[in-house]
């Protein structure tokens, strides 16, 4: 079901401001990869370019060996979870999750009975059984996030893309959801790309991490690889901040201190 994603020589600029500069990245089928970088590094633009929500100036996006830039959004079949979830505010949880299936052309649309069953299964998967008649405003942040995920999963996406999936949640919920998302990934094995600026999040959740800065990919690798062999000065500097923080955390018994070693 899931496919590998290959990005080659991607270029994108907003006016005169270059957002992506010759970005190449390979994501294996079933892999969970994090795009990590400070704000303005181009990570969300890269995610949106893979999704097809952003027109690219040049370069290639491949799903398996299909050129995705030639596909319409419908044909791409990606599951996108937006930073603020973008749930349809006037629809119930059930209608939100069923949206993608109901929007299909009549020939490929499942029966309404089947759609209901599918929504129930998904609600169970994201542990929200019984909430199908609620509206988004009646849900907590964590619940909304899981509805957004269920809605994205409903169309059986080839690739799952998450934009700052935990950004809008408080720390406690964030930790629980992080673990839960990892378990979900183990079970469903969707090719998943997620964007984050939080290093702990990236390292805890992802198989590999791609570190971006100023529209360029600085390094791609596992946690051990980027820590032991940072390939650029930026990566070394960027990661030290985390390392320093975690040692300080221990020293201060969990009080959060964010420090950057002077360059």
């Amino acid at each position: 079901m899931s496919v590998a994603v290959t990005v080659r020589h991607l270029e994108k600029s907003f006016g005169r401001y270059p957002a992506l500069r010759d970005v190449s990245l390979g994501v294996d089928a079933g892999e969970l990869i994090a795009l990590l970088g400070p704000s303005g590094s181009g990570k969300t633009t890269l995610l949106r370019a893979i999704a097809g929500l952003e027109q690219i100036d040049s370069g290639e996006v491949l799903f398996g060996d299909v050129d995705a830039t030639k596909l319409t959004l419908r044909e791409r079949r990606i599951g996108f979870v937006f930073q603020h979830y973008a749930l349809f505010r006037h629809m119930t949880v059930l209608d939100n999750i069923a949206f993608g299936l109901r929007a299909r052309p009549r020939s490929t649309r499942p029966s309404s009975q089947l759609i209901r069953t599918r929504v129930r299964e998904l609600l169970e998967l994201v542990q929200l059984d019984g909430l199908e008649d609620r509206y988004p405003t009646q849900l907590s942040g964590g619940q909304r996030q899981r509805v957004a995920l269920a809605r994205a999963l409903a169309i059986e996406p080839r690739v799952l893309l998450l934009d700052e999936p935990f950004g809008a949640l408080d720390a406690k919920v964030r930790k629980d959801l992080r673990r839960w998302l990892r378990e979900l990934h183990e079970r469903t094995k969707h090719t998943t790309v997620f964007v984050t600026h939080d290093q702990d999040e990236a390292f805890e959740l992802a198989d590999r991490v791609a570190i971006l800065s100023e529209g360029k990919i600085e390094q791609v690798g596992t946690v051990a690889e980027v820590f032991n062999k940072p390939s650029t000065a930026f990566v070394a500097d960027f990661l030290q901040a985390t390392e320093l923080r975690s040692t300080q955390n221990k020293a201060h018994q969990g009080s959060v201190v964010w420090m950057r070693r002077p360059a």
Partner: protein
Amino acid sequence: MSDLSINADVAPGATGETPLVKAALISTAVLFLAVFLFLPLIVVFLEGFRKGVGVFMESFADPDTLSAVKLTLLVATIAVSFNAIVGLAASWAIAKHHFKGKNLLLTLIDLPFSISPVISGLVYVLLFGAHGWLGPLLQSQGIQIIFAVPGIVLATILVTFPFVARELIPLMQSQGTSEEEAALSLGASGWQTFMKVTLPNIKWALLYGVLLCNARAMGEFGAVSVVSGHIRGLTNTMPLHIEILYNEYNFVAAFAVATLLASLALVTLVAKSVLERHYAGELNALQRQ
């Protein structure tokens, strides 16, 4: 919309007025409203019915009056549908897309609010009139715009254009594009996205804008007066007809037609406040999310 600002949780008395000041302020406001709003409205109805219901009804038997009512309804229907569709398209373009000249377009949309309706009418006379820029060309084709129904429709459209767009733009801007993007990413077509996501999110605001637009379209006097030519039974709308009747000292008929126009305004007002209740709820829901 106005009642939204009252929701602020201010403790009673926090603003510190004495009961005397409060009473003075309230009675000033009530007195003002009574003299300048309610009294004229009551006078319109009293004058209309002064010589009894029979004479009142008789006023509407007049074919010129009937044709004025019909023309007003026709013009309002065309102008309101046009402005609803074009206003929606303009709001969509402004709120959901980035392009050069966006601010200019925003300013242009507001223009009809800031210029005198008489000028809005004159613009069309200059364009399409017998001695206007396009007048001779149109006349040679046998197309009559000024002193005919098309001119009245055009003038009404221009004057009432901002109502729908002004109502929709801020709402659509605050809602952003992420729901539409979500719908598209889930495989919906552009049309499905519009019908199932965009339209339901703006329906109350759209209806509200249409109501205001309609009220103004029916009541428009200045711009229509310039382009209409006041031909009885042909190019007289209700407001113009009222003026003619009044100038002919036919007070009962003038006020009878005025009663009808005022009733339309009252219906609009009631519909508007009902909508406002719905719309405010929806706005609150929006802000919570």
